[in-house]
């Protein structure tokens, strides 16, 4: 089965180590909130500032979860120290998009998918299936892997921080944009399908993709 989606807006950002210019201070003026944000949350909030969210349903994805919080918890347990409550609450896979919902007062359906290397491919499938209902859907795929000792865990990903967002809606029109999961620059495989779409997005023409379910 194939479902076609019109990509209405697209945004992406990446860095080999540490994305620095996320405009977090301006986007999250309250310091008490800002200092609780994880890096994935800051990336999500940045991406959201580049597209019109409008209380839409969101399908978010992250393959490896909140790595820094997870690492901190592991260290605390290993050192027989109390786990930080804030770190624990920030360790769930839906952390980043939950902060976004709070900051934008989005009370709609918000899903988090974690499907390993196929995460963004599955975000597209789930988004396409949901888009059949007729509303515009926000799709977001993020990885934030720049943690201490990452070199001991990673030997294939060059870009440790990546985020991509697409706003889509169902269409019966034919596809105008081909995409695949080619990954010559060693981004995390988990974001590659959506990143390849976002890189080809042209705001001056119709961008219609075909999702094979």
């Amino acid at each position, binding site marked *: *089965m194939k479902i076609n989606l019109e990509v209405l807006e697209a945004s992406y950002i990446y860095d080999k180590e540490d994305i620095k210019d996320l405009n977090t201070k301006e986007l999250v003026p309250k310091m008490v909130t800002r200092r*609780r944000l994880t890096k994935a949350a800051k990336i999500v909030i940045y991406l959201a500032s580049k597209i019109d969210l409008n209380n839409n349903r969101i399908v978010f994805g992250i*393959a*490896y*979860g909140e790595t820094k919080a*997870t690492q901190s*918890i*592991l260290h*605390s*347990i*290993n050192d*027989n120290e*109390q*786990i*930080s*409550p804030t770190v*624990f*609450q*920030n*360790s*769930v*896979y*839906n*952390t980043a*998009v*939950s*902060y976004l*919902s*709070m900051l*934008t*007062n*989005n*009370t*709609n*359906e*918000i*899903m*988090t*998918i*974690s*499907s*390993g*290397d*196929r995460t963004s491919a*599955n975000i597209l*499938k*789930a988004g396409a*299936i*949901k888009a*059949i209902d007729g509303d515009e859907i926000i799709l977001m795929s993020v990885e934030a892997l720049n943690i201490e*000792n990452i070199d*001991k*865990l*990673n030997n294939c990903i060059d870009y440790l921080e990546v985020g991509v967002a697409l706003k889509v809606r169902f269409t019966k029109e034919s596809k105008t944009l081909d995409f695949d999961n080619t990954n010559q620059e060693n981004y995390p495989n988990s974001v590659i399908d959506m990143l390849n779409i976002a890189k080809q997005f042209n705001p001056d023409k119709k961008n219609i993709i075909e999702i094979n*379910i």
Partner: protein
Amino acid sequence: MTIKNKVFINSSTSISCAGNSNEELFLNICNCNTGIKNNSNFSYENNPAIGVIDSNLTFDENLISQCQKILDNSNLSNFEDTLLILGSSVGGMKNTEDSYFKNSDYKDIDINKHNIQTLIDVIESKYKFYDNIAFSTACTSSANAIGYAYDVIKKGIYKNVLVVGADSICHTTVGGFSALGVLSNNVCKPFDKNRDGMNVSEAIACLLIQDQKTSNSIEVCGVGYSSDAYHMTQPHPNGSKNAMLNALNCANLEPENINYINAHGTGTMANDTSEANAIEAVFSSKVKVSSTKSITGHTLGAAGAIEAIISTLVIQNQTIPSSTNLKDIENKNINLSLQTSKEKVTYVLSNSFAFGGNNCSLVFGSVK
């Protein structure tokens, strides 16, 4: 696309601290036999009460065993035309802990056995599926997985879906909830004035969901989602209220049609007050309510799936379970079930709420 298909749960299995089968699970729930025990394996906490599966098999072996039981009790010869949907909060976290705690060295960690997808990899090492997807929204993970199953079958995209809710107990979750100050050293007392917290637990719960009914089917009638947009861990009653209203609307039912609510009911001060207020706002005081977490514990990402199974068993047995351990009711405006009773049950609503204010309510019904 015309949305037309009905959605049926045709087979289910579970393993948890409350029993190694659905039959044991429901018997223990109805007889108030808890699977929660104090456990001293988590040294940073003073003997917390938690729920551990009693089995000679490893968690991964149990995962495969539960899927095999589903296959054996289904009209399928294999899973090749089936979508596998996993709901899990921690995935392979226990693998990472076991590796790292050996030598405190990262090189021992296999990142591919750390994430959520690793549980799918375990299942797919034995069975071939048409496709798979995994949801990880903390304690709503497998409720959302069932919601997605409802969506893909209702829309005619799949005929067969296997939903697996699975979370194994680990230091991260026990220690984390301890750090939040919500872990009890006693069997939890959901909705009691004197409740003192929750019991972290583990479980595997599997449901075969199909577009055709069989002899013992239970219908998935509707699903309702919402987000609190309020706080990472403190719930807002409007979020849970909206999830329940959305589920009723999806099922085309009124609040008075619901006979029983299987509450999220964790036993924490914050959840139970908020959830009881939300139930009070939506339902009349006639609808019976109970939480079964004083028997199963809070199985985190598996909770939505195991409580969906409990909901199907309530309908199949026409039996509403009691609220084990409930003595001093905090909110007397909701009708908490105080003893297991035979009742006519047509529709059950099951609540799941999670960190980040992620809410999912599911409605199940007897098949006409």
